[in-house]
Every structure is written in C-alpha cells, then in structure tokens.
C-alpha cells in the first residue's frame, strides 16, 4: 500500500456540559472517544454512522477546527497537536474541509471570486492577477463558468454552491480533503454530478479523501475503506467491498440491512434495532452498543471489546466475532 498520510492515535473529544450560575462542569459529552486510524495517500476513507455518532466532530478535530481533548494526529509524519495556532494555520494549506450545508458555508456578502481568493490571501500565495487566474481556472475545473466569479452565493443552486465549496477547498492545492456530508443536502440527480466531480478531482490532483456521510450507498460507491462509528467509538473498519460482503459487527449488519434498496424484487432479512441511540453524555458501560445489540451477552455489558484484526485488514470491536 502507498505511503501513510495521516495517523491518528487515541483521538478524543469530550465537550463539557456546563450547568448552573457558575457554569460548573456537570459532565462530558464523549463525542469522539478513542479513534485510531491510518489514512493512506490517495485513498478515500469513508466514515459512516448515525447522527450523533461523532463522525463530523472527528472530521473537524483532525484539522483542529475543534480542539481535541487528547490524542495524537500525525500528518505527513508531523505531530500537528504540537503546532502553535499560526503553525497550524499554515498546515491547513495541506488539509482542507468541505461542509455539508452549501447555504451556510459561503459568506453571502462575498462574491464567489472573493470567497475563492481569500484562502490564497491568507496564505500569501500569488499576486492578485495570478489569484484571479487561479480562481477562474478553479471555477472551470469544478464545472462552473469562470464569469461567475463576480456573482454572489444567493444566485446559485445547491449543487452549484457545493461546487464552489469544493473549489474553495481545492484552491490551495491541499493533499487531504475532509468531506463532511458533501452531498447530503443535494437532490439525487445533482448528487451524482458532484460525486463524479469529486472522483475526477481526486484522480487529477492526487487527493486523499476522508468522506463523512450517513448514506451508505454513497459511501460504498466512493470509498476504498470504510470506518463504522457508533457513539464516538470505532465499531468496524474494512475495505469497502469486504465490509459490505462480510460485515462482522452486529451494528454494521443492522445498519446495512436497514438501507432501503431501490429494487422491489430484493427481499432481505432485516435486522430491526430496538430503541434509540443512548446519550453520548452517559454512554453504556462495556460495549457501547450492547443496549441495542440483538446478540448482547454478559461480557458485553462489562468489558469494553478490544479493537482487533479479525480478518486480514478487517478490524472490528466486538467480543463475539
């Protein structure tokens, strides 16, 4: 396999819950609770899970957009947790993010040209003519007319805005892109346009993607490997094909069986999970999934399962596998 681009060890993000007049800390929401990951250059790592599982918080803490509580993040061999604020800012030239909501993530008072040249200004790249040229070529590259640079965000549709968001992330020529639900807000016909665009850009610019999403069909389509998260923890990690062909964790199985398949003749055994997600402020003891797991046994309620390689390149955290 190719070189390691990003290595994450025991990453945690706990948000304090503050209560009362003096805002004392009454507890913690364990949004991300121990993530170990290796991301290889040029791959797409999909991260799936239900809302509240910590997938977005994880994506953001990798760039230190939310400051991790503890853990190590090595990017190209460098420990970025040790960087100062300004050093980290420089580092983000290499690591960019695209957000879910194309309506909220563009400044409505900036023209598209301003939005796209701002990152270059911050990083003191190029002079103003060269910046303009780069904006134009970037717009063209993401399938928009270069003349759009003088327009404002409200003049664009959701799909077009998402293309702008992608162009903004790309303009610095990063190595790693974190895509946080980039197509969730788009209609199917437009969603596929954006997915194809992301695939082309990855080829052309040799990008590495961390693709955070809840839509399993989309994640399967675009990812080489997939990480399944639940309540801030890792449940399973395997190659995309392997995960779908042979899911090992009971949660993964339930998740996959719940996806409606657009084929009326496919009849599947569906595993219906009972109940709702427990609160991440008060996660269950032992395996965090045991409260909804159809196979849970005594050991699951007491001991946290170990993260181990159950098959070649197929990691899972479950006592019963």
């Amino acid at each position: 396999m190719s070189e390691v681009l990003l290595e994450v060890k025991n990453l945690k993000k706990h948000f304090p819950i503050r209560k009362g007049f003096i805002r004392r800390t009454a507890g913690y929401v364990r949004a991300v609770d121990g993530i170990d990951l290796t991301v290889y250059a040029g791959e797409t790592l999909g991260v799936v899970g239900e809302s509240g599982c910590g997938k977005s918080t994880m994506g953001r803490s990798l760039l230190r957009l939310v400051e991790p509580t503890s853990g190590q993040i090595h990017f190209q061999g460098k420990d970025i947790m040790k960087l100062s604020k300004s050093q980290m800012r420089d580092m983000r030239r290499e690591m960019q993010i695209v957000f879910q909501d194309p309506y909220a993530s563009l400044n409505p008072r900036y023209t598209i040209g301003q939005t796209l040249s701002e990152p270059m200004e911050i990083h003191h790249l190029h002079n103003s003519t060269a910046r303009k040229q780069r904006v134009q070529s970037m717009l063209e590259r993401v399938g928009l007319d270069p003349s759009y640079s003088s327009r404002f965000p409200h003049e664009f549709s959701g799909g077009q805005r998402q293309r702008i968001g992608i162009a903004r992330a790309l303009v610095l020529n990063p190595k790693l892109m974190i895509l946080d639900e980039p197509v969730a807000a788009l209609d199917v016909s437009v969603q596929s346009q954006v997915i194809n665009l992301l695939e082309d850009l990855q080829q052309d610019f040799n990008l590495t993607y961390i693709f955070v999403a809840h839509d399993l069909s989309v994640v399967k389509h675009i990812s080489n490997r997939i990480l399944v998260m639940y309540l801030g923890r890792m449940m399973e990690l395997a190659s995309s094909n392997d995960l779908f062909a042979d899911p090992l964790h009971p949660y993964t199985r339930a998740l996959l069986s719940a996806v409606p398949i657009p084929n009326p003749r496919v009849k599947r055994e569906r595993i219906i999970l009972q109940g709702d997600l427990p609160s991440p402020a008060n996660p269950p003891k032992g395996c965090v999934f045991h409260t909804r797991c159809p196979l849970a046994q005594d050991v699951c309620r007491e001991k946290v399962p170990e993260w181990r390689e159950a098959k070649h390149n197929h990691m899972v955290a479950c006592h019963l596998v």
Partner: protein
Amino acid sequence: MANSVLNVESLNVEFNMEGNYFHAVRDVSFKIEPGETLGLVGESGCGKSVTSLALVRLLTQSARVTGKIEYQGKNLLDLPERDMRDIRGNEISMIFQEPMTSLNPVYKIGAQISETLLLHKDISPREAFQQSLEMLKKVGIPRPEDIMDEYPHQLSGGMRQRIMIAIAMACNPKLLIADEPTTALDVTIQAQILELMKGISKDLGTSILLITHDLGVVAEMCDRVAVMYAGQIVEQGSVDDIFFNPQHPYTRGLLNAIPKIDAEQKQRLQPIEGNVPPITRMPKGCRFSPRCMHASDRCRAQQPGFFQVDNAEHLSRCWLNEAKEA
C-alpha cells in the same frame, strides 16, 4: 374504478408571483385504490408536497387550485371548509417530514392524541384517553403510560414520528398521506418506522400516499409509483413497471443516478445534467426537454400527453412512447 379511495383528475395548483400566476402543479391525475400504497417520487421543487397539501386543502389562500379531487363521490375542492374539517385528520390524515415541528411543544403527548379523537368522535375524554393509550401501544412506544404524560421535547425524532403516526391513525382513516415521513431520521430508525407503516396499512387496510425522494423507500413500500418532474407526473405504473421497465428519460435518469449498494463492481454514476428549471421559466414543450438526451425539435415545441406503454396502468408522458403505443 368506481371504488377508488381517492380519484384526482387534472389537478392544477398555481401560485401568484409578482402579479402572475405560475403552475406549481399542472394537470396531475392519479387514483388510489383501497389498501394500496402509491408512491409520489421526485426531486425537491417538483410539486409533490404541494400536491399533497392541495389534496387536504392546506395550501395558503393565495394558491389557485383547480381540477377534481374525488373522495366518496364528492369533489373535495367544492366542499365547505366545515365538511372538509370533518374529513381532514379523520378520514384522510397526514404525517409530515419534520416530527420536531409538527407536534405542539406545550401540550402533553396524551392530550395531542386525544384531541383528534375528541374532535372527530363522540366520546368522553376518559374514553379518548384510553384509546390514545391503545394507539401508543400499537405504534410500539415503550412505557406508553409514562409517555402519555410527557412533552414532545422529551422524545427522540423516531419516537416523535411514532407519535405523529399514532395521531394520524387514531381515527382509523381511509387514507394516510405521508410526506417524507422518514427523511429526517437515521436509517435504523427509518427501518423501524417503515416497518410500522407497512404493518398498520396491512392490519387496518389503510391506503397510503407516500411522498418521497428516496427510490429505495419506494421500492420497499409501494405498490404503484407516480414520478413527478417540474410539477407534472411524467410516468406512472406499478412498482415493477417503474423499476424494471422505466420509459420516461427522467425516470431512467433518476434510476441511473443513484449509487447501487448491491453493485459488485464500481460503476461510474450517470448524472442527469443541468438543473430543474425555475417555475417562472418553464420550457414551452416537454418540461424535461432541456435536460433530455433524446430531445428533438418536437419535444422542445410541443408538450407531450400520456401514452400507454405495455399495460393500461403504465403511462409515460414522452413523445418517444407515442410510436410504441401506435
């Protein structure tokens, strides 16, 4: 068929925008048979939600609604508001996408279910309370006695949607209109809710009009499907017709655009290029023609009507099907 639950004929909905009326829904016709689930699919802005609101007359006053919505021999569009109110929530009920906003935050769950019963049925508050409790059990709410006494904010999204279903089903309606009922929910919760809706429709024989953009949900739930694009139904047929013998280029485009979770090999997605035209600038001919690969001069100039495909139920609004019909 004479005994359809609902028979919609050339429904038009127009909205006034800056002095001009524009069609949000144009010439929409469909029937819903007893016990069947009809899916209304399409992308945002295609008019599927406006259609559903028009059926129960919940659109704003400024909307101009014409056509015929026949329910038990009456045209709902001609009924006085009083009679409409007796039908709405009683014989035809609705659930909406946002379980967070469709419940009243200051009333307890028990009161909200009872309200529907008290309004439509001649029963005492005590009986209404008992029946509400029964409904909660039926929709699979754990600790129903406690939940009766709780407020919506104490419940999760999936639970709130169950409550909405309990309210909608309280009076045992003939038709349930479900507008994107699972879009705001996670997949595992979505699976629970779909299972519940299927069970209820089977047990009580309720017809469902299911409005969604998710073709997976359609395949799972529906008997027949109507595909909408830019305010019109472009294709209509049984679920097998739509998934295995799609005729309209838009239907085909939609099916090709979604990633297949059961695909062995990775295939490139085939998107539909371009965007849906805005309501104020609809193309003159076929509304899909600007995005259609097969569009001819005739498509751009002349609106196609419906052509029958292989059986009387399968209709496609495309000139390409004209030749096949003849």
